[in-house]
Structure formats: structure tokens, C-alpha cells
């Protein structure tokens, strides 16, 4: 059954071999699976609140309750100033953006483990799943952002200045930076956890620690003179959080250099992440 000579027409649609180029990303293939991407986004979003009465309203309840808690603990008890911004707006901003980062990060970081049963049975570009996580979290982010806008409008009636300005356009590149960093870090962790679960354990409390190392409940200007301030400044998420507040309220310590630093960090993590992901996705089923 092997006699046929097909040397002349050695064109194959698919080649499977043990090794591929370290950085061979098939973005065209992902585009071919765009319908799947959309369905995953829909599934992630819908499935989360099926059989709940309040449904997507839970997206609002969580930041509201957290804001109240922050208001009590950091505002009233610890008395940390909020850079002249209304503390409620300050905390909702911090929570909304930080939430987006953490949901993206944790969501993408268990890509392989959570989807092992599907990945083990059928092939599709694996990158579709973390991309869907990023996108479905964006919907959630949008809802929480509307809450923030509503709160800003509400407080403008109470005498606060109304902050809307062209600076808001900055939010888009900042959000892309935030999502890119979360995606990069997430897929790095997901690639490493296929074999060594240690990273998963680290992640569960590491994110909590990271929040305190990022200006979420305080502003950079408040700790700028303190000894450990360099540590917070080293955090590539710091310019992003400060940037969000700058775009929204015009207050925040952010410079082009700092943003370039964050951009550089995002590019490196994304690059390393994609390279690792590319390598691991081929045979992770054997070790997961």
C-alpha cells in the first residue's frame, strides 16, 4: 500500500512533528477559529451566572461591597489620603481596574488545567481560550466601568467637579497594556503549571500581595517619600494604575518614561509567554 510515487506533489496541509520553531505563531489559524473564540466568550459570560436570580448584577454588587470595605478600612481606620479625589471614586477606580487585571490573570493562568478535558480530545488553536478569557472579562469590566461613570455623575451633582475630558482616550491604550500584561503573565504561569503545580499555589496568595504592592488603595504620591517607594515604582503595574487615575481625574504620577517601562514589560512577558505556550501546548497532555 505504499508504492505510489508522490514525490512530485509533496504538498501537505498539515505536518505534525516533535519540534516546531520556537516562535512560530499561527495567527491565521486563530482567525479561522474566530467563531469558536466568540462562542467561548459567550460561554464564559453566560455560564457564570446561569441559575442565579441577580445574574450579571453580581458584577456590580461585588465592587460596591468592596468599596464600602475599603472606605472603612483604608479611609476611616488607616486614614490613607486619596490624592484629593473623592474616596469612593478613588476606590471604585482602583477596584474596577484591579479586578480586570486579576480576572484576566487568574483566568488565563489555568488555561491548560481547566481545559485539559477538551484539549485532550480535540485540536484547535489553544490560544483561543486565554484570548476568550481576556475578552469575556472585558464585558465584566465594562459593566463595572459604567458603575464608576454613574458614580462620577452622581458626585458631580453633589458638588464634585465633573471630570470628563479628552484624557479619557488614554484609557484605551492603558487598558490594552493592562490586558497584555495579564495575558502574558497568565500564559507563562499556565505553561509552567502543566507540569509543576507549585506556581498555582504561589499565584493564589501572590496576587493578593501584589495588590498591596500596586497603588490600588493608595496613591503613589502618598508613599513617594517613603523608603520602600522604589519597590512600588519597580512594579510595572504602578504606572498603569496611576495612569488610569490621571486619565479619569487628572491626578496621578505618571510619565512617558514610566509608561514605556510598562510597555516594555508587557512586550517581554507576552513574548516569553507566547513562546512558552507554543512549546507547551504540543505535549502538555502528557504531563498535566
Amino acid at each position, binding site marked *: *500500500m*505504499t508504492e*505510489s*510515487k*508522490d514525490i*512530485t*506533489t509533496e*504538498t*501537505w*496541509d*498539515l*505536518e*505534525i*512533528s*516533535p519540534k516546531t520553531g520556537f516562535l512560530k505563531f499561527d495567527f491565521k489559524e486563530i482567525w479561522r*477559529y474566530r*467563531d*469558536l473564540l*466568540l*462562542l467561548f466568550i*459567550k*460561554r464564559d459570560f*453566560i*455560564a457564570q451566572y*446561569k*441559575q442565579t436570580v441577580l445574574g450579571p448584577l453580581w458584577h456590580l454588587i461585588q465592587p460596591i461591597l468592596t468599596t464600602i470595605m475599603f472606605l472603612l478600612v483604608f479611609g476611616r481606620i488607616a486614614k490613607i489620603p486619596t490624592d484629593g479625589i473623592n474616596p469612593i471614586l478613588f476606590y471604585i477606580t482602583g477596584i474596577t481596574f484591579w479586578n480586570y487585571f486579576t480576572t484576566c490573570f487568574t483566568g488565563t493562568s489555568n488555561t491548560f488545567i481547566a481545559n485539559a*478535558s*477538551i*484539549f*485532550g*480530545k*480535540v*485540536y*484547535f488553536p489553544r490560544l483561543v481560550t486565554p484570548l476568550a478569557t481576556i475578552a469575556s472579562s472585558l464585558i465584566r469590566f465594562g459593566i463595572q466601568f459604567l458603575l464608576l461613570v454613574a458614580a462620577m455623575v452622581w458626585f458631580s451633582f453633589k458638588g464634585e467637579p465633573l471630570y470628563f475630558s479628552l484624557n479619557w482616550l488614554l484609557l484605551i491604550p492603558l487598558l490594552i497594556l493592562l490586558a497584555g500584561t495579564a495575558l502574558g503573565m497568565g500564559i507563562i504561569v499556565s505553561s509552567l503549571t502543566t*507540569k*509543576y503545580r507549585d506556581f498555582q499555589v504561589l499565584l493564589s496568595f501572590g496576587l493578593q500581595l501584589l495588590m498591596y504592592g500596586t497603588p490600588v488603595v493608595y496613591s503613589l504620591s502618598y508613599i513617594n517619600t517613603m523608603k520602600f517607594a522604589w519597590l512600588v515604582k519597580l512594579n510595572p503595574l504602578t504606572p498603569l494604575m496611576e495612569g488610569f487615575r490621571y486619565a479619569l481625574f487628572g491626578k496621578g504620577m505618571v510619565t512617558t518614561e514610566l509608561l514605556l517601562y510598562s510597555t516594555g514589560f508587557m512586550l517581554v512577558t507576552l513574548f516569553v509567554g507566547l513562546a512558552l505556550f507554543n512549546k507547551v501546548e*504540543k*505535549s502538555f*497532555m*502528557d*504531563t498535566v
Partner: protein
Amino acid sequence: MSDIVIKVENISKQYRLGKVGTGTLSHDINRWWHTIRGKEDPYLKIGEVNDRTTKGNSEYVWALRDINFNVRQGEVLGIIGKNGAGKSTLLKILSRTTSPTTGSVKARGRVASLLEVGTGFHPELTGRENIFMNGAILGMTRREIKSKFDEIVDFSGVEKYIDTPVKRYSSGMYVRLAFAVAAHLEPEILIVDEVLAVGDAEFQKKALGKMKDVSQGQGRTVLFVSHNMAAIKNLCTNGMIMTNGTCTFSGEINTAIDRYLKPNDENRQVQGIIEWPKGEQPGGDEVKLTSIRLLNEVNEVAHSFYTSSSITLEINYEILREVSGSRIVLQLLDKNGVVAFASTNHLSDGERKDRGFYSTTCIIPENLLNKGRYEIFLHIGIPGIKMLLKSQSFLSFDTILMGNQGSNFDENWTGVVAPRLQWKTIKMIRN
């Protein structure tokens, strides 16, 4: 001519046994150290043949070793082999859920794999939503699914529940819906693993029919793994036998199945022949058994039989002292130890026998036994006078249900036997 659509060259797959721990980390580091210096992976040189029954010494095992084959356009290749022979690993590599350790696979056309039905079904989503979800995972576009949606729902027969979350479905409905989606895939190459073993008899028949349509009617290339010989025989044109991670036979399907069903040394539990050397022959002063054989319809020793063909039991023995009125009694027990039937040669063959070697045969007719394993107990005696050979189990054999009751798939049929009886229906004319 160039109609080869899948070309598999030297595929091997190595697995590491045991748990992931500090040991694996040190191996990983060592492997990485070798690769950055441009050397060969040190663990590829070791590794044992994949045989799960013997405990190996090496931590590494070759699940597949140097597999080579080509599949032609429109060919339906059945891959057969025992559990752990590497069939599923091979399919996993072909469907790209894992990569081979060495070797390469080349394919032409869209490949879709059905290693399981209902991959990606989300319990919270409705049947409708899951059809789209599952279809997309299997590689269909939204438009393709939309155009086939009605057909899929119709095939599954769960129309009434299509807007209910699938977690409320019975397991049968779930599987029907899942298979319906899978059956409407239209890839050039389809890889199927044992998915027909789902649903009730009616649905299995439907599923098998659909598979047949896909492979024969539409000229698609199909790779099919199953333990269901009836289905394989029915569907496939070619067969490949896998044994311990290597391909031991490849060729025409009937030859492949016959070869696979023939006894071999590894399969001691069921065997088609037993021979005793002198001195170990069971029996007494009057009679000693020399050998017992089970033969199929073409007089070959076998240990697996289709229920649609007869089985010949051949008992060879030596009479040491003249006996008369003796009989051989055959008892056939099913796997639960229930006597399916007992039979004797007393009526046909009960007269006096003088010294010498004898061979007695008994034909178990076709369309009598059910699917499963049977054990042969024999005893020889002169009724009411003397036991010449104590009743004991000698051989076991397996039967594969094939067409007894008219269906052409692996249907479960109750009873220790499944005889084909005389049935007749006439239409009554009423005034």
C-alpha cells in the same frame, strides 16, 4: 498517482512512568542542559517496550515505536489491538492533542477527530447553544453549523429539549445530541475512537449507519479504532493490528481481523489449543487426554469466534485399556459460571473402544452462543459405573456477536445463549 492523504513516518512516543516530582525536575534540567549544548536528549536512548503486564525497570516506556503507514484517499482504516497496544496514543498524535517524540505525520485536507462525543459541552448551556459550541470546537464555522442545525436536531431526536440546559438531559439524550453534531462534520479526514459504544441499540444502529454513509457514500478517509470487531468488519476496508506499541500487521480488513483473533502466546487466558506432553496427560488408567483444540470454520485453531460461525471442539485421547459404554460430557459455562448447556456423545458413539488413539469432535453450531467468554468443562465416564476423567475446565474462548439476531452491530443481548430460533409471521385475514 498521488492519492495518499496521510503519511505516517517513524512515529514514536515515549512516556515517563510514575509521578511528577523532584525527580522529573532533575531530568528536565538535564535534558535542557543537553539541548542547549546541542546534544541529543539523553532519555530518548532508554525506554522499554510497552507491555503493561510485566513490570519494567526503566522509568521510560515507548507507547509507540516506529510506526509507519500510509492512508489513501477514501480508505477506511480500522486500527485494532488489545488495551494498551498504543491505538489511542496514535490517534491522539494524529488528532494533534499530543505530539510524537520522534517522527512525523503529514496529511492532506481538514482533519477532524472524534475521540469522544460531546467535547466542550457545557452543562449550563442549552442544547442549541451546545450544538454551536461543540461544532465550533470540532472545527465547523458558525455558518456551517447553522446550515446543518435542523438536520442535527432531527438526527439527535431531542428536538423537544433543545432549549433546555444539557445538564437536565438523560445521559442517552446527551450522547445522542453530541453524536449528532459529530456525525455532521464534513472533514476530508475523520478520526474516530470507539464513539459508537454509546446510546441504546436503536441509536447505535443509526450511528453505525451514518458512519457507513460518511465513509462509503461520501468517499471520506476514516481512521477508526474499536474493539467491536463486528463494526470494524462492517465499516473498514483495511486493517492495522497494533501490538505493544508497534504495528504488527497492515492489510485487507478480513485478514487483519482473522489474524488478530488467532491465538498467540501472550494470551494465555483464552486459548484455542492445549497439548500435554507424555507423563502429564490428565486421565486415569483407562483413558488419557493428549490434546484439545478449538477450530473455526476453516479448521484453524482459534480462541475467538463469531457467533455466526460454528466452533469445532476436537478432543484427542488415548485409550489404554478397552472400555465400553463410555461417554464424553461437554459442559459449557459462561463467564459467571452458569452452565449454558451440557452435551454428550453417548448416543452417537457409546460402543466399545479398544486400545489406541482416538479423536472425537463436537460441533457447536453457529447462531447459538451469545457474546462473551465461555469455558469448556469436560469429563469422561461410564455412567453409573466409573469416572474415567474428572470434570475439569480445559479451555476458554471468546465469542463476538455477529448477526445472530439480525443487527449488524455489537448489540447487547441477554441470556447465556442467544440461539436463532424459527420465527414466522403470517398475516391473518379477517372477514
